[in-house]
């Protein structure tokens, strides 16, 4: 078979072996130092669990540090030429670009879509690509706007038959189910599928490059790009954006060094070979019930693992630019997103030991779990070490002159402790330092971040802010892990990526009051242990105490803008922006103007909008006619129509509104009646809808 994948390389070749041995050495050295330090202190009780905890946590830090260290050197080598010659030029494949949406702002979604469509057109290769908006939106206000935006976009670009729109009335299995339904309905028409998020933007050149690489190598089942964060306004958003742009490439180079063709999938901004995806990547239900079992919430990691299990490669195209996404603009929104991701990652526990997965897949799944579980382990480690030190101080025993690893370095006990702290912090900050060094050693890279001084200041600012935020994130993540384990699930919500005016101080206090209280209690307890211990733990407990203020400050777009003016936390996309990134806000503004009947400030119920507006009504009637609708009885229709006209806003329940919106006859009749009835006979809530239509020059 021509397109069957060849057998992948053995997992533990020299590159990977070298990588893991380096990470292990980074873990082993501080762990031995730490264990010996406890022993020298005379702490015998609890030394084993504490050492194990320290080793696990240090492995997590070392893992990141090794990525950056190897990545730093890996980036110094000359880039390999990538073969983009199609294997079978006489049989070109086609691509479906799928955009799942769930109540996101249609103006932004369609601005991004239009940008990508036009960018593809400019490459001269656009004929290979079709777009699909896969809507799972549940709010009529949202999906009616989607329908109008889609129709006007297709009209303006003459893209009917190239840009498709499909809305599900029942959101079975959330996003994974949305994609599955697409694959089952249209998947076999296309050779590839590019998955996007509602906030994704990809340039035409990048999309074409992804396609060419897939055509050139039939072994690749999934090719993931490394999306860059864009459009951040708040201090928090800009911090995330800077970290992603500045530290990301070095880390990702290290990731690619060991994973090769056994990479991971991050759910969007990636291209997938549809044949094997349909055959092998349907998601099984997990044992038990939600949130820990049941339907798989985070489908991406699992799909990558299943793709590899089928013998295909999953690769990361680290060299491709022109792939973008957005991020939450404050800590609370960030935590909300983490809550969902945490639950999804915890579910992956079931798959860790399943047969047939590659070791790399298990590693990706394990790292995903540890990304959240490590916070809980840190909390346990801090509590446990506090108790043991408290016992040690309370015993009032003098230290015995015990020897140990410290003897090799000829260092007293205090320096021994400082050495452990030094090594751990060095590993923690190594990725940041290496990224800074990489920027100075790569020609022209510092200029892209505002200059050498600005780069350095940005890194320092990011380190300080991360240190202030990390303890709060630890509490958040620890809490999420416990909640998931206790069976407290999380709903499916729309991600808010807008900064607005930032958080109000009251809201920040409300959200972080528990963290501040925990910080206060921890400080008081640490003071009970000893003054020295208090000073050691104050950075953690103190950060918790001031978390409401920190959260409030970092949410502010005004601070973000001020930093931007000074070129602090600047990124290449701000200094050397691409045409596509400039186009999106312009198009979004244009959609805002043309979609003025969907006013976000004074929202109007979707059903009323669809009844009054002649064009929206016509679009909905056409789409309702195309879909199979339930046949309502005439008497029931009459009751609903009467109620809506006479009682106006709030007269219908949600399911009744959907009933009206899916019934051609009712919609047509309502539109005719609402305009011809005597205004006196209509409910007063209809009046503002008519008042909107005025002549303007």
């Amino acid at each position: 078979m021509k397109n069957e994948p060849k057998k992948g390389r053995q997992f533990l070749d020299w590159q990977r072996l070298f990588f893991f041995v380096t990470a292990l050495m980074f873990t082993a050295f501080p762990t031995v130092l730490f264990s010996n330090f406890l022993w020298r202190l005379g702490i015998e009780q609890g030394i084993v669990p504490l050492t194990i905890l320290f080793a696990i946590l240090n492995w997590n830090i070392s893992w990141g540090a090794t990525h950056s260290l190897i990545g730093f050197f890996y980036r110094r080598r000359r880039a390999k030429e990538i073969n983009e010659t199609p294997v079978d030029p006489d049989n070109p494949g086609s691509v479906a670009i799928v955009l799942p949406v769930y109540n996101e702002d249609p103006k932004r979604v369609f601005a991004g879509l239009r940008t990508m469509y036009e960018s593809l057109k400019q490459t001269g290769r656009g004929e290979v690509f079709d777009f699909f908006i896969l809507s799972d939106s549940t709010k009529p206000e949202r999906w009616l706007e989607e329908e109008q935006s889609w129709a006007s976009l297709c009209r303006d670009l003459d893209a009917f038959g190239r840009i498709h729109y499909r809305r599900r009335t029942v959101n079975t299995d959330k996003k994974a189910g949305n994609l599955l339904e697409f694959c089952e309905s249209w998947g076999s028409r296309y050779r590839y599928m590019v998955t996007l998020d509602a906030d994704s933007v990809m340039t035409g050149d990048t999309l074409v490059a992804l396609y060419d690489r897939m055509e050139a190598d039939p072994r690749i089942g999934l090719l993931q790009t490394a999306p860059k964060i864009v459009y951040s306004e708040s201090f928090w958003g800009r911090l995330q954006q800077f970290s992603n742009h500045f530290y990301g490439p070095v880390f990702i180079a290290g990731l690619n060094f060991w994973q090769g063709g056994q990479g991971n999938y991050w759910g969007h901004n990636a291209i997938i070979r549809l044949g094997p995806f349909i055959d092998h990547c349907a998601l099984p239900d997990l044992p038990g019930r939600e949130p820990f079992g049941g339907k798989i919430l985070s489908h991406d990691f699992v799909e990558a693992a299943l793709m590899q299990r089928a013998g295909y490669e999953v690769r990361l195209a680290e060299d491709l630019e022109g792939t973008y996404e957005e991020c939450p603009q404050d800590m609370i929104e960030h935590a909300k997103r983490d809550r969902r991701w945490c639950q999804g990652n915890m579910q992956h526990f079931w798959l860790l030991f399943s047969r047939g997965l590659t070791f790399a897949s298990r590693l990706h799944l394990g790292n995903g779990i540890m990304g959240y579980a490590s916070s809980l382990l840190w909390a346990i480690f801090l509590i446990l070490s506090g108790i043991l030190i408290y016992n040690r101080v309370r015993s009032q025993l003098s230290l015995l002159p015990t020897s140990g690893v410290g003897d090799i370095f000829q260092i007293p006990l205090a320096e021994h402790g400082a050495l452990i702290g030094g090594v751990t912090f060095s590993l923690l900050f190594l990725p940041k330092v290496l990224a800074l060094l990489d920027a100075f050693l790569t020609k022209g890279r510092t200029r892209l971040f505002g200059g050498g001084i600005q780069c350095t200041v940005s890194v320092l600012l990011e380190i300080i802010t991360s240190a202030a935020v990390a303890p709060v994130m630890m509490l958040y993540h620890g809490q999420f892990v416990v909640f998931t384990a206790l069976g407290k699930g999380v709903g499916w919500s729309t991600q808010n990526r807008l900064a607005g005016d930032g958080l109000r101080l009251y809201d920040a206090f409300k959200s972080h009051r528990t963290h501040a209280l925990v910080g206060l209690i921890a400080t008081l307890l640490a003071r009970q242990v000893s003054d020295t211990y208090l000073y050691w733990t104050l950075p953690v407990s103190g950060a918790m105490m001031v978390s409401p203020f920190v959260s409030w400050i970092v949410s502010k777009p005004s601070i973000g803008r001020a930093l931007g003016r000074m070129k602090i936390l600047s990124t290449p996309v701000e200094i050397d922006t691409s045409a596509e990134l400039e186009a999106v806000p312009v198009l979004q503004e244009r959609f805002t103007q043309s979609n003025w009947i969907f006013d976000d400030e004074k929202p109007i119920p979707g059903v009323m909008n669809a009844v009054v507006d002649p064009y929206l009504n016509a679009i909905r009637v056409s789409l309702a006619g195309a879909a199979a609708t339930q046949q309502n009885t005439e008497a029931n229709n009459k009751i609903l129509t009467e109620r809506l006209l006479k009682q106006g806003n709030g007269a219908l329940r949600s399911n009744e509104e959907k009933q009206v919106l899916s019934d051609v006859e009712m919609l047509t009749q309502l539109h005719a009646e609402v305009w011809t009835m005597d205004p006196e006979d209509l409910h007063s809530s209809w009046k503002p809808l008519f008042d909107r239509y005025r002549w303007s020059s």
Partner: protein
Amino acid sequence: MDPLEKIAPRSEGFIDWGDAYQRVERYFCALHIQDRLLLSQLVAKILSRAAERVEPSGKSPSVLAMEEAKKVVRTWFAEVLEAAGVPQKEIGAQGRLALFLADMPTRWQGEFLHPGPWPQEFLDSMKNTFLRTGPDFSEARMIPRKIDLGPVSAVADETWRVIDRWPFVGALVVWTIYIGIFGLVVYLLR
């Protein structure tokens, strides 16, 4: 005599006709008629027709005017769609959708409610009277392949099942963990 002349200022129904004027104007604004002169002409034409019917019907000017507006628009849609060779079903909605897809407000405002014959290009652009949301289905089935979760997951699964069968056991496990943690702290601080 022009029926509009019946609507005299200071007459009893003048305010009602003002309301009718506003309502008809708003309907055409909702159809994105932006040319001021055209808008005035269309509204005047509709009010003129409504004024002819005012006495025998007993309906308010506002209702009469909108009935006339709808009638005029529907008749025009029927003529245009017939000239464009479009089979007619939901003529009002079809016509409005055709206007939208033809981008009438930007490209063909002068043709709106204008009696025929119409330019061929306009008729061609009015042929789009329905929306096709996707290509033909090419159905495939995505069926999960069997996945052996291994011994650890099997044990965990069985534990869940037991807890599901006897919720008391689940509660006992959770409380044991709580008490265990409390006990451990007490033991370490003893």
